[in-house]
């Protein structure tokens, strides 16, 4: 591409760009410099983790050693212990199963709900909601204060709910629409897990599901649903109606339209949402701490457990952090174009 020679004075040549697709020398240098500096900021802590995983205790305590083979002799003790002697495989498997399953379920239920909220009109009676809340309070008080067995209390509550619906519901027509339902679903994300965790613990304990993968999967699905609804709702709102409408006229059911037409159209957004939710589920700590013991222990809890009364066993912890990051990086690199595009679409409308 032959461009006319640059005949501008020196200062302009250094600082002003000639076209949108090139950078002037000084800004170019500054840009690369800053970006590379941030790259160092990002990578150095991770490098330090990697290097620490190759050290033994006395090397860590004695002071900073930076480069293996130059500064210090690396040892594979920590890796050996963590991978082969310690029971690391079990929590790793737990993490994989719990994260993947809960992400897929959240995506499925969340996108279904979002699609319905975008395409179908809902009217939820206010009376029903109030009746529901009153009955939940009733069940809790009955079980705690009056020692009613919880199965009986819940059954009675369900019966009363339907009774209330049919009688009071007829009289008061005030209702909440789609926007309010969406708002409710998404605002659940604001709730801090610490508020919800103890009742959830008691619930699982009554169902004899404590310390199982099922408990974690269902809890993570619930915690991440709001994000899925938030993001996918806008993806669906953005796709044109024609394809769906013509399919429906041809007699396809809503479900068929959803699965065969709507979902494929928002692939990109789904990939981004998948990645985000997977990261959240993979790295979650507080709920796993409460709800798991030995059987369902996940990786973040194992990382934290390396902090003993003798001090954090940095070398073991580093190994765990490294093996936790690697699969996520691989998946992210694979999906990275989708992520950016998908998040953008979601954020624009959301």
């Amino acid at each position, binding site marked *: 591409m032959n461009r006319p020679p640059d005949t501008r004075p020196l200062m302009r040549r250094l600082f002003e760009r000639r076209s949108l697709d090139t950078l002037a020398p000084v800004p170019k240098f500054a840009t690369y410099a800053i970006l590379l500096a941030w790259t160092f900021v990002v990578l150095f802590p991770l490098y330090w983790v990697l290097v620490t995983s190759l050290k033994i205790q006395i090397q860590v305590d004695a002071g900073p050693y930076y480069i293996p083979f130059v500064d210090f002799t690396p040892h594979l003790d920590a890796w050996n212990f963590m991978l082969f002697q310690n029971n690391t495989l079990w929590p790793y498997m737990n993490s994989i199963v719990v994260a993947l399953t809960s992400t897929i379920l959240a995506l499925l239920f969340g996108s279904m709900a979002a699609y319905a909220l975008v395409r179908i009109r*809902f009217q939820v009676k206010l009376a029903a909601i109030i009746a529901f809340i009153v009955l*939940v309070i009733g069940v809790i008080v009955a079980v705690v204060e009056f020692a009613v067995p919880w199965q009986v209390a819940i059954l009675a509550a369900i019966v009363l709910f339907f009774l209330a619906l049919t009688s009071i519901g007829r009289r008061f027509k005030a209702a909440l629409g789609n926007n309010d339902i969406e708002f409710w679903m998404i605002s659940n994300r604001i709730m801090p897990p610490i508020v919800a965790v103890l009742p959830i613990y008691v619930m699982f304990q009554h169902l004899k599901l404590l310390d199982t993968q099922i408990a974690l999967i269902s809890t993570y699905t619930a915690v991440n649903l709001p994000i899925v609804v938030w993001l996918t709702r806008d993806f669906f709102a953005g796709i044109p109606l024609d394809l769906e409408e013509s399919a429906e006229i041809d007699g396809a059911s809503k479900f068929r339209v959803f699965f065969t037409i709507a979902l494929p159209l928002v692939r990109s957004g789904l990939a981004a949402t998948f990645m985000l939710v997977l990261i959240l589920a993979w790295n979650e700590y507080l709920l796993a701490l409460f709800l798991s013991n030995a059987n369902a222990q996940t990786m973040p809890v194992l990382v934290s457990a390396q902090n003993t009364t003798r001090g954090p066993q940095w070398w073991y912890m580093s190994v765990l952090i490294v093996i936790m990051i690697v699969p996520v990086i691989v998946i992210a690199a694979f999906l990275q174009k989708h992520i950016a595009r998908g998040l953008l679409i979601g954020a624009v409308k959301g």
Partner: protein
Amino acid sequence: MPYLSVNHSAFCNTGRYMAVNVSIPNETDRRERVAQWVDRHSGRIMVLPAVLILLAFAIFPLIASAYLSLSRFALAAGSFKLTFIGFYNYTRLFLGVQQYHFLGTFKPFGPLEWTLLAGVMLLLAAWLSRYALTGFTPLGFAGRLITAGLIGAVWFVVLATAVAGGIPGTLLNTLLYVFVGVFVQFVLGLALALLCAQPIRSRSWFRVIFFIPVMVTPVGVAYIFRMLADMQKGPFAPLSHFLGVSQWSWATEAWSARLMVLIGDTWQWTPFMFIVLLAAVENQPRDQLEAAHLDGAGPFQIFKDITWPTIAPVAATVVLIRLIEAFKIIDMPNVLTAGGPGLATESLTLHSFISWRTQDLGGSAAVGYLLLFVSTITCVSFFNFVVRYTRRYQ
């Protein structure tokens, strides 16, 4: 108050289906009828799983926790005992023995504090009255009143503790992490996004690498930073020796400890801002950019007139997402300093967690609920007044 502005949703009546009246044998007839029933109620069926899950895992625990926060928990033989004690758990956080923990240690007001308090009160009153005079709705006014109330109350506590020489409690610590943290992360993320959107090579490499911190588990990040911040054994020890600060510990002073928590939090979450803002910046209308460039507009001009208006809605949304998450911070302060020195780095979730650890379940639930109130009011206010505002041209 509607949360999302539904601009493009299509409403379609349930029950629109093609009924083809042909005589069919009974078996298929029944299946047809079931399929029609399913299709008619497809809306409800599609929404049902999500609703049930949220009811079980969000509404039920919320109500149960509310009940827990109004009682005192004690273990008894074989089970536990919950004694109803009214609002004691809450009042002791505001006015009682735990006030120093939650709100902070108050010091008397001086003239400076009174002036600042009066100033902010006047601003809030002006804002409210402006709304009352133009386009008043009861719901809108009530909402603004709540927001103003929270801002006023928090400002009062800030003046009484931080400005007047007292000591801030967990409420203010959390608000500091949220607002300062998110602000810094936003500015950094935006700067990086703008830089990365320039015509440079290996942009995808930068994108992947910059995204990595988000993928590390927060507990891991906290321990990493504890390692890095060690002035004696960490990688920066020679630097701290050189600067002569190796005998000083960041963990023993309130503000340096808080700063360290903010640094760790920023390292982890700036990439999230960066990724979304980068996509937004890349999505600017190219024709406008070219026109501006031809007109000889400088970089700042272009940013002010083209870039910022384009990305404002995205920026507002991503800040909102980050705000919601930031309120829940616990791993970083817990691991770095266990909430210390004193109470300097303790966040509300950490406060609640520590209470839980010693069987004070009622107190723990009360703190959790207060966190819920504060974060809800803040996030909803932010959405209504900032996010909606940036979307006014869309």
